[in-house]
């Protein structure tokens, strides 16, 4: 569902992503680990076609994002590190608007139900987003992915800054979506969350994917050692 073929992004002499080859299938959660500037967010931006690749291809649903930008965006839901919604609209209004844009019109009751299922407190559904915490906004993002019935979810540090309870709830929602066959690519610093939630893990450094393995094949301690080893080198 998500595929990177020799995907490269250069900014002048600086290589942000170097010959990335990656394939993520439906029902998989691929966690990209790496320090700041490793190229995780750039990879996500390449899949979103926010930036063009210098070389190689980013495929979404077997379509090149460069030649099919609108079609591929139609398959994706994206939740950035800090999901920003329209502050003067309520959570429900935001959800209704973004669902409408993705041609997934649902009625008010259905949207409310999805927001509740995504963990948003009932009192906040009709409150303007300026009173929301970051965790609440991320939940609206998850609700959007659910409402859109997206086949692919791109997450850029989605639990960064969330309290443990909110992070845990978020992970549960991801696992639920994985069970439904959603293809998930998540960039994160959080080793624990990657081990706990991901099906596959990749470690990136200086634009290169150094390691790629199944989550089940390593313990948390091994993962931590491996990650630190790469970061030190």
């Amino acid at each position: 569902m998500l595929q990177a073929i020799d995907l490269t992004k250069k900014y002048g002499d600086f290589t942000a992503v170097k010959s990335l080859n990656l394939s993520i299938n439906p029902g998989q959660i691929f966690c990209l680990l790496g320090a700041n500037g490793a190229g995780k967010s750039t990879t996500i931006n390449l899949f979103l076609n926010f930036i063009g690749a210098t070389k190689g291809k980013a495929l979404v649903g077997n379509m090149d994002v460069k030649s099919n930008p609108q079609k591929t965006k139609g398959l994706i839901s994206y939740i950035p590190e800090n999901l920003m919604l329209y502050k003067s609209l309520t959570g429900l209004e935001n959800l209704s608007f973004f669902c409408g844009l993705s041609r997934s019109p649902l009625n008010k009751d259905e949207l409310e139900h999805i927001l509740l299922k995504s963990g948003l407190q009932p009192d906040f559904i009709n409150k303007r987003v300026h009173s929301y915490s970051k965790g609440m906004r991320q939940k609206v993002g998850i609700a959007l992915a659910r409402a859109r019935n997206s086949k692919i979810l791109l997450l850029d540090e989605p639990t960064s800054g969330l309290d443990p309870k909110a992070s845990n709830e978020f992970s549960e929602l991801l696992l639920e979506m994985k069970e439904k066959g959603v293809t998930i690519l998540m960039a994160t610093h959080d080793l624990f969350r990657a081990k706990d939630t991901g099906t596959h893990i990749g470690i990136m450094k200086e634009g290169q994917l150094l390691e790629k393995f199944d989550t089940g094949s390593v313990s948390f301690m091994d993962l931590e050692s491996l990650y630190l080893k790469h970061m030190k080198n």
Partner: protein
Amino acid sequence: MKVLTLLIKKEIKIALRQRLIRIMAIIIVLLLSTALWAGYITYNQQQENVELAQEQRRIEWLHQIDKNPHTAAHYGTFVFKPKTLLSLFDFGLDTFTGTSKYLEAHYQHEFMFRPAQEYSSTIRFGQLSAALVFQLLIPLLVIFLSFNSFTSERENGTLRLLMSQHISYGTIATGKIAAILLILFSLLVPLFTVALIFSNNYINANVIQDLSFRILLLLVLYALYIVIFVSLSVWVSMLSKTGRNSLLILLSIWVFFAVIVPKTATGLGTQLTPLPSLKIFRNTIADDIKNGLEGDLSASERRKELEKTYLKKYQKDSLHQLPINFLGISLQAGEDYAAKVYDHHWQKLEQTIEKQNAISSWASFISPYIAIRNLSMALTSTDVNAYFHFHKHTEVYRRNLVKKMNMDLAKNSKNGEFFEYKANENLWKTIAPFAYTTTSVNRVIASYFIEIVAIFTWIILLLFAIYSYSKKIKASYV
């Protein structure tokens, strides 16, 4: 289309929830209502005054005592430029040119009782009219509505989420433009609709030709003018990194459009094609009448020639033998020659003003404010062309009146008689009451074609800029 509707609804909802926008909209509506109310009161007062004065002058003309016709021509009459219904929307140059004129033999008087004479120097900033609100204040509202249309999305981070949807940048821009236009048109359309309905039944509608069509054109042109400012604001917002930058750029553009370009165009026009002072204009005419225009005979020579012509025509030796009063013929010949000289100099004056106006017209490509200002005045018949048109009409009326008086003197009195001969009411009645109708709207369109082209050029260029930028949008701006 559904996506566009959603974008529009979202933009309107967000805009209406912003206190600043609500306050500005209320202020604009209040100013607009005040301007229209003031315009309505002024219109009614002036209309009443004009009708009353016109009627009184007519009565005075018809009931003047029996007198020599040429004296009656000097007694003259006042004529008044009728206020048109549209002048309550745009006062135009009426405040500065005046609308009353005294007509008498030999002299082409200037317009009198200019309202601007009664104002202090604040008149330089213009009067509060509905047109002023539309031309200068609504663009400010547009700027405050749209300066952050893209920058706020970028600064708040919502643009990334929006751009990750199944939607193009061009569609987002279209939605934003359409939403702002809908908010503004909800202010504009009711006003013009009421005016349109009102105009169809209005008693004074016959003064201005094609009234309904003019209102419709005003509506369309003001709508296009607003489209220009909305597109410009959205475009600047697209290009700016922060809302602060966008607002500063747009306010600078507003000052450039509304103050710098008009002042520069006027200054340039005056420098390149200066007008003679009124004193020089009058003196040149007086000299040319006395000494003859461009090689013509002098006044005394022309009179001698005229004597010879008439003596020859009637085969007489002296003026006393003529069957007509030669004084009347001579006065009329003097009148005709003065008219020729006046027309010659007036034409030159008009040509100079036309050159100045041409500079202003071409400046429409630098400032759309100039385009709409000129078109608005033209369509409301308060522009310089309307002034010229009315002036020519009054001059035709004056010449006809004077000619009738002089020819009556020539035909019905003996040579040498002047005060001895007295005409009466029967002659006064032959002068029809003064009536005036403005030029046709086709003529207005032809005269201001450059401004119309400029408005369309602005729109095409701005929409092209927006959509070509939408295609080239860089990630750093998302």
